[in-house]
């Protein structure tokens, strides 16, 4: 057989072009595997670290209704992380390796979670904007070429819509409340708007991996396309709340059929990615503490499982003997 690497890669690309999904045991280029391990695990880390800023407000939610909603949302984020870790594991990386990469700072997670949640309104802004931005990205990923990733995304997207509505309802409540409450909502929007736009990643011309990712149908749209889509959807929602977007350059462009918007502060983006955001250290410490302090639980569960299995074995042996 002539299965040299070039032929295999050509066949692989032909399968992708034909719209076929790639499953874990199929042959794939090493770079496709590595890109997926990196992207899926970082997506999983984002879900897990994403629980921290919101968990900050569970005990201080203003009503039982809000508390139930937020608890359920945070629990969903844990679930989303688990779906994604499982998808990444099908490519041959272990859960412990992924945790290790997160805890040592080798793997990244979405930079948005390195911003603090200073007021209750931030929980509204996160649900509305951060989950809103995530949905745009994740809806695209339901059609990604790697089967397990696409399936995890379908599951996640079904659940994510509640998160965004939960957030928007919080914002709506505040905007229809007292003057101070509306100011809280505006302040949260001011702080979360730009970081939300950064969630889509660098501009296309500064994103060297985009071309290959689009070719392999890992991404079906570019960062700038997704960002524009998010802005176009979100601006009317801010108008509905009676809030003002913190961007003086934001205005509807009739000719393009899109909103024009101001320059994103990419220096800030890269600072946060490199670990110098307001909460990077705090987030990572919360993660490593949870992992270290949970070690005895994991060990105890292993010891118990082993004991039970030995007990069962000896019972079986007795049955056979009698």
């Amino acid at each position, binding site marked *: 057989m002539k299965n040299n690497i070039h032929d295999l890669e050509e066949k692989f690309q032909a399968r992708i072009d034909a719209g076929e999904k790639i499953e874990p045991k199929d042959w794939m280029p090493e770079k496709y595997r590595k890109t997926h391990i990196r992207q899926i695990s970082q997506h999983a880390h984002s879900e897990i670290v994403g629980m921290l800023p919101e968990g900050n407000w569970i005990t201080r939610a203003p009503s039982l209704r809000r508390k139930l909603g937020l608890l*359920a949302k945070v629990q969903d984020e844990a*679930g989303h992380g688990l779906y994604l870790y499982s998808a990444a594991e099908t490519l041959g990386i272990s*859960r*412990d390796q992924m945790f290790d990469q997160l805890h040592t700072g080798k793997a990244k997670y979405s930079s948005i979670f390195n911003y603090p949640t200073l007021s209750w309104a931030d929980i509204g802004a996160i649900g509305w904007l951060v989950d809103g931005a995530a949905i745009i990205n994740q809806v695209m990923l339901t059609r990604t070429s790697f089967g397990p990733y696409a*399936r995890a995304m379908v599951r996640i997207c079904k659940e994510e819509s509640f998160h965004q509505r939960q957030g928007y309802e919080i914002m709506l409540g505040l905007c229809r409340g007292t003057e101070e409450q509306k100011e809280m909502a505006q302040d949260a929007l001011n702080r979360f708007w730009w970081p939300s736009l950064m969630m889509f990643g660098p501009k296309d011309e500064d994103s060297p991996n985009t071309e290959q990712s689009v070719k392999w149908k890992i991404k079906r749209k570019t960062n700038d396309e997704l960002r524009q889509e998010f802005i176009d959807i979100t601006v009317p929602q801010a108008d509905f709340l009676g809030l003002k977007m913190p961007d003086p350059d934001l205005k509807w462009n009739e000719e393009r059929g899109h909103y024009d918007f101001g320059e994103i502060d990419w220096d800030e983006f890269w600072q946060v990615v490199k670990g110098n955001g307001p909460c990077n250290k705090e987030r990572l410490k919360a993660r490593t503490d949870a992992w270290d302090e949970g*070690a005895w639980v*994991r060990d105890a*569960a*292993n010891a118990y*499982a082993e004991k039970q299995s030995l007990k069962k074995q000896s019972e079986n042996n007795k049955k056979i003997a009698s």
Partner: protein
Amino acid sequence: MENKSKEWPIWEIFIRSKNGLEHKHVGSLHAADAEMAIENARDVYTRRQEGVSIWAVESIHITASNPENSGELFEPAKDKVYRHPTFYELPIELKHI
């Protein structure tokens, strides 16, 4: 930060969404034993009443066919059109057949 703990094994989870339907693979998770696998599956895969029954099978017990053998395994069925009802030509006026 050292971690000497052994990783919990991986389990494949199958959910029956309602009686009358088959169990369907939904994904996998880690658990120390079978009982924990069921409990975790409940939390991870049925938060919105997605199921009425769970199967958990430790992944190492699953034997999977190799995609490289797909040709010899599945291609022989390709040219056996006579296994399909449309292969047989009958007069159009014939009913219920």
